[in-house]
């Protein structure tokens, strides 16, 4: 890496975070607040350097660049929430953002559903495929909301689906365990090798 200051900073911060596991303590609290502060500073600084500054320097002065002022003003309206009496103006950007986002959902999500539907149109000559369809339709049955007294067949299907969902969740949990350990392993590796100089 880049010398002992880097290694020692990293190691002490790593230990400070791990100390949370033992109990609340000043080292953890300092790290927590330092981290939150740096992350917020980074977010704002990065947006300025890599987005707003290029837009103000390159896009706005270009021919037809006035159009960029519209979104800048729209975004700035959000800050009216700090001005009593004018705070209703903040609803304009919020309303537009929400609507735009909902439009995205409506425009793109159905295609994903269609993909899942056509992907489920499997050849029933295979036992595996039949089992898949049973799991899928059973899963659908677990989500029916409007029949409080579900008829027997639907209830049975729902039970099959529930087991399929439980298996899926169990498998996902099992898959996650190792992934999580891999991440910790990286940090421990850093402590043991780079900081304490063990092994290899």
């Amino acid at each position, binding site marked *: 890496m880049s010398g002992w200051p880097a290694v020692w900073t990293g190691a002490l911060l790593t230990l400070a975070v791990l100390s949370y596991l033992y109990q609340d303590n000043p080292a953890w609290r300092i790290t927590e607040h330092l981290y939150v502060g740096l992350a917020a500073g980074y977010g704002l600084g*990065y947006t300025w350097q890599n987005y707003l500054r290029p837009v103000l320097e390159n896009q706005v002065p270009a021919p037809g660049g006035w159009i960029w002022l519209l979104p800048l003003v729209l975004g700035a309206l959000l800050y009216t929430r700090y001005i009593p009496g004018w705070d209703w103006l903040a609803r304009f950007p919020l309303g537009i953002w929400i609507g735009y986002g909902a439009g995205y959902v409506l425009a793109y999500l159905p*295609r994903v559903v269609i993909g899942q539907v056509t992907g489920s149109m499997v050849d029933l000559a295979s036992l595996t495929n039949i089992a898949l369809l049973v799991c899928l339709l059973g899963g659908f049955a677990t989500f029916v909301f409007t029949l409080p007294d579900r008829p027997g067949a639907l209830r049975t299907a729902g039970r099959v689906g529930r087991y399929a969902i439980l298996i899926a969740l169990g*498998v996902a949990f099992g*898959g996650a365990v190792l*992934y999580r350990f891999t991440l910790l*392993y990286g*940090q*421990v590796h850093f402590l043991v090798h780079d900081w304490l100089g063990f*092994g290899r």
Partner: protein
Amino acid sequence: MTLIARLQHLDRRWLYLGVLVVTVVGSIWPPRIVPRPSPATRAAYDLAQAVPPGGGVFIYIEYGLGSSEELDPMLAAVLGHLASRGARIMLAARSPESSQIAERVMTSVARRFPAYENGYGQTWVNLGYRPAPDVALRAATSGIGAAYNQVDYAGNTLRGMSIVDDLPVLDRRHFDLAYAFDSGDGFAPMIYYVGTPMRVPVAVGAISMEVPVLQPYLAAGQLAAVIGGARGAAEYEALAGQPEQANVLVGASALAAVYVLVVMALGNAVAHLGGGRR
């Protein structure tokens, strides 16, 4: 019976200590296990193998530093393989950190290939991150330069970079393969905006916990291939015949698997022997 009673009120910090011991041991003496390549990893390898020299590959890095341990070796293995095939590589990122990850891993891979070490702007480019990155990704399907404001990760202009001139649009005509290296949120935008409408084959380099979730998309053909976790990365390394960063991880994680199984068994034993306390 006192042991059981004591275990019933087990302080969770003892479990934490066990985790620490297992990872320290795994870090110093990792057991070596070489996995056999699974069909899913082989599919990913074959996709990259099918990219012609000079073919475009778009790589969307979603994961952050926290997933680096698992995905960096995989990204390095795939980039190394693509570079050995002479593909033109365009990297984009879904967060500021992931743009730095893209830069770090790609420059280290480029050191092994002269055409990439000195070929920035021709053989590869790092477009970096933009706010609302998925919108930028979608915009790239109608024009990459405009979508990324004509600047790359470091703020250099994209104008005049031959890779952007030759591969101006993220579509099937210009790109043979699109990858998401993903810890959960990157694969869906790739399917929505790039895979399904533009018909570019989409592969995912996924953290292991994501693999079950990707199955429906793989089965439906919306994803062309998935490399799963440290194990998948080790398999890819084996296929591509490259140095084995991921392999060590596989051995260490075997220890972790045994430990967690023991903890699960212990939890059950305590609950049942101790008179079924919920």
